[in-house]
Structures are given as C-alpha cells and as structure tokens.
C-alpha cells in the first residue's frame, strides 16, 4: 500500500469513528428536553398523586381530578368520532380524485388549517357554537378538537392512500368494481394500518390541546351532567390551577400534568406498536 493511500485510509477510519459519535451526541441532545420534561413532571406530579386524585372531582373537599380526567377522555372520544370519519373520507377523496379543482382546493385548505394556531380554532368555535347555544359545552369543546384533528387525519389519509400502488386500483377496476368500491375496499383497506396509526397520533396530539378548550368546553368543578354542560379537562384544569397562588393547587396541577403526559405517551406507544404489528404480521 502506498503511503498516500495509507494516510487516506487513516483519515477515513477517523471519520468513521467521529461521525457516529457526533450523531449519537445529537440524538442525546435532542432527547434531553423530552426526558427533562418527563422527569420534572414525574418528580413533582408523583408527590401529589393519590387515590382521591382519580376518584374525586375538583369541587369537593380533599378533591381530586376525576371529573377532569373523565372530561379529557370524553372530549377526545367525541372529537375523534367527529374528526376521524370526516378526515378519512376527505383524505380518500383527495387521493382518488386528486386532479379535480375541488380536491386541490380542499388539500390547500387542509394545509392552511393545519397551520392555524389552535387558539383561533377555539375562538371560531366560540363564535359559531358557544354564542349560539348561549353556553360552554362539552360538545363545543369536542368540535374545536375535531377541527384541530381534521387536517391531520385528512392529510395522513391522503398521503397514505396515494402511496397505494395504481396496479391495485387497476386490478379492482378491471374486475368490474365501481370507483367508489375500489376506493373503500381496496385503497382504504390497503392503507388502513398507516391511517390507523396516523389517527392515533392525531388523537394524542389533541389530548394535550388546551387553547381551543378555554372558551369552548371551559371548565367545571364537577362532573358534567350532559354534553351541553361545560366540562373540565386535565389541560384546562392545569392552566387554571397554575394561575393561582395556592401551593396545594400547584401540586394538583403537577399531578394532572403527569397523568396527561402519561396518557399521551401511552397513546403514542400504542400507535407505534400497532404499526409494528401490522408490518411484521
């Protein structure tokens, strides 16, 4: 081996050691905030967690946050029931009729909607729903969350449905399947695993949304009795308690934060597990 080649090899070997180390360090740096947040929330939150936190509502002595936990879940379920079917239908339309002017307009507005600050969504739902119904309600809160979910679900479905190879669409059409059946039973079914995890990620995303709820679901010290009542949620309850000077309530807010973060992490892990299962199975 010539000396030049040898020195070139030495340089490469050095680079091969430095590059992975550098990117490893970048990974650690990127993960640091995540773990810092979780560790901080866990250490503060765990102290205030107790059984009553999960069993008692806010508005009683020795209170917990049962009503807020229930409210968060209630709103997310309601919002999903509104946002996911609509989003999937819209996304499938976009993918299957991509070249129509309507589809282009819808895709553009979905992208814009995804970029709208979520507090604006809250303001609009306040004006459109809350003012008309003359009260804050779970329904209004769920509607606001559904609007936040909608572009996420729509664009995920759109992307994944367009990734379904045309050969499968042609196979179905050549079998005499009408266009709509092809879309529903071949395209949607083929893209389903990805869409499912996309929906779970959208659910995780809105589980933590606070701003759209401030003037839609508002807050409630007790369990709401109907969907037309104002509803407490963990996120708004955290906001409310943090704004007070009361140490007890601060501790409760930390506990609520811990529960909320755990909920979001569980949803994320679930989404990823689903994808992994679909891919291996």
């Amino acid at each position, binding site marked *: 081996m010539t000396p030049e080649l040898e020195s070139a090899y030495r340089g490469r070997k050095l680079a091969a050691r430095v590059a992975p180390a550098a990117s490893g360090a970048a990974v650690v740096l990127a993960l640091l905030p995540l773990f810092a947040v979780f560790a901080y929330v866990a250490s503060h939150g765990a102290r205030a967690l107790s059984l009553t936190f999960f069993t008692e509502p806010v508005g009683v002595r020795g209170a917990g946050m049962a009503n807020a936990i229930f409210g968060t879940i209630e709103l997310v379920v309601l919002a999903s029931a509104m946002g996911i079917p609509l989003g999937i239908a819209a996304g499938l339309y976009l993918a299957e009729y991509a070249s129509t002017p309507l589809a282009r307009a819808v895709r553009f507005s979905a992208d814009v909607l995804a970029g709208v600050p979520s507090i604006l969504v809250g303001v609009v739902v306040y004006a459109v729903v809350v003012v008309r119904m003359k009260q804050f309600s779970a329904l209004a809160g769920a509607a606001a969350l559904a609007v936040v979910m909608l572009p996420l679900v729509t664009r995920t479905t759109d992307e994944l449905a367009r990734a379904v190879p045309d050969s499968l669409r042609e196979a179905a059409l*050549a079998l005499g*399947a009408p266009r709509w059946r092809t879309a529903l039973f071949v395209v949607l079914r*083929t893209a389903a695993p990805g869409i499912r995890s996309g929906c779970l990620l959208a659910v995780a995303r809105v589980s933590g949304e606070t701003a759209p709820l401030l003037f839609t679901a508002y807050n409630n010290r007790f369990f709401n009795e109907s969907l037309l009542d104002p509803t407490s949620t963990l996120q708004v309850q955290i906001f409310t308690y943090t704004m007070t000077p009361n140490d007890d309530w601060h501790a409760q807010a930390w506990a609520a934060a811990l529960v909320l973060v755990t909920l979001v992490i569980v949803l994320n892990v679930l989404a990823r597990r689903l994808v992994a299962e679909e891919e291996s199975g």
Partner: protein
Amino acid sequence: MNDSVDRLRARGARVEAVEASAKMSAAELSAWFGDKQALRSITLPLIERKVTAIIGPSGCGKSTFIRCLNRMHEVVAGARATGDVLLDGKSVYGADVDPVRVRRRVGMVFQKPNPFPTMSVRDNVLAGLRLSGIDPPDTDALVEEVLGQAALWDEVKDALDRPGGALSGGQQQRLCIARCLALEPEVVLMDEPCSSLDPIATAKIEELIHDLRDRYTIVVVTHSMQQAARVSDYTAFFYLGELVEYDHADVIFTKPSDPRTEDYITGRFG
C-alpha cells in the same frame, strides 16, 4: 389505415368464416395519451374460443390495444380512444354502456401479478364478486373450482388463508388469473402475463392458456415470439401503433406477407 384484414379477406372464404366467429372485434380503433397517438386505426377480429396473440416491439401499442378492449384505457388521465370495439356485435363504447359491465365480461390479467396484499388467497379469488357487491352462496366450491381452473388448487389448498402476497410470483399470477375467472368472463385479456416470471412459471402459465381456450376467448400480449408461436391460434403483429399483419399463427411464423413482420420474427429488429 392498414389493410391486413382486407388482404386476409382477399385470400378467400376462410376469412369470412373467421370474421363471423369473432367474439370481439376492433373497428378503426385509434387511441391517444394526451397528444401522443398510440394506436392508429386498428381493425382486428378476436375469434371466439381461440387464443389471439398480439406481438410487436415495446411501445408499439399492444398493451394500449387490449386496454381499449375492456375500457381500461380511459382510466389513465388524458387517455382517449376513437373508433369502436364490438363485443358480440354490440359496441362497448355505446353511450348507454357501463364500463363496469364491460370489464366484468372482459377480464384482464396484468403484466405484474397484482393480488390484493391485504386479502387472503381465498378472498383474492372472491374479490371480483365482492367488489361487484355479489356475495356468492357456495364460496368454498367456487374457490376450489376456479383455483383448479387456474392450475393452482393443489399448490394452495392448504394455504387459502395466507395473504395473497405470500405466494411466489408465478403462483400470484395464477391467483390473478383465478380471480379473473371467478367472474366467469367471456373474454380474458392477458398483458404480458409471463414477463416477470421465471421459465418454469412461464411454462405453467402457457399450459394454462392452452387449457383455458376451450372455455374462453383469450388475447395474449407478448413480446416473446416463441411464446406467441407456442400459445396462439391467431397472431397479430403491431408496429408503431399500427396493425402490420394478422393471420393464423402458423402463417405469421412461417410465411409472413409483410417484410416488417418477417424482419421482426427473424430477430432483425425489435
């Protein structure tokens, strides 16, 4: 316009009989992709319960031609066709004709095997019916019969619940043929059905084409002249979007009348 059918007709009564027994025929069929013309006024009969092979170099319009026969051509954005295609003497391009119905009578097998990956072998076979909104009463018998026709039953009878994509390439292609046959089509179009298969799988498909000709009118697009010679009763040679010559396969491969056909089958170009 080409004159090969006319020339054929000039040879005598045999051709009259040929046209009378046409299951399908193209009449002055032209096709475009946007501004680009892919087919130039093709007139060609497809004889009932016979195998017609379409040969020619890549890009000569073979695939476009058969896609016009079951109205799959128009699925591509910007694609259009003029002229006419007759099925049992009736136009498939009539204003009152639903392409969905045409495709159910004129089945198609694609170049690359395309079983539905999310469906089991069994569901793939039944997919055509289910996608048409039909729930067949005795699915087990139908699946066995159709897979048997496609010479696949013995290989997959214990794997009916495995995903269609888990089969080998040749098995996938026979699964696609079974899926097509389940609809009981009258005509089966095959677009280079063996081009992605190894020689053994190819031999199986060719054997299958042989067996199927008793029941179906078959059109096979191929760029393998050997394959066309082996499987077809009639052969049409396409070149640059035109039909150069059409005749009995043995005539095309032994004494073609057009010098371009002769050049192609003797391997001088293509």
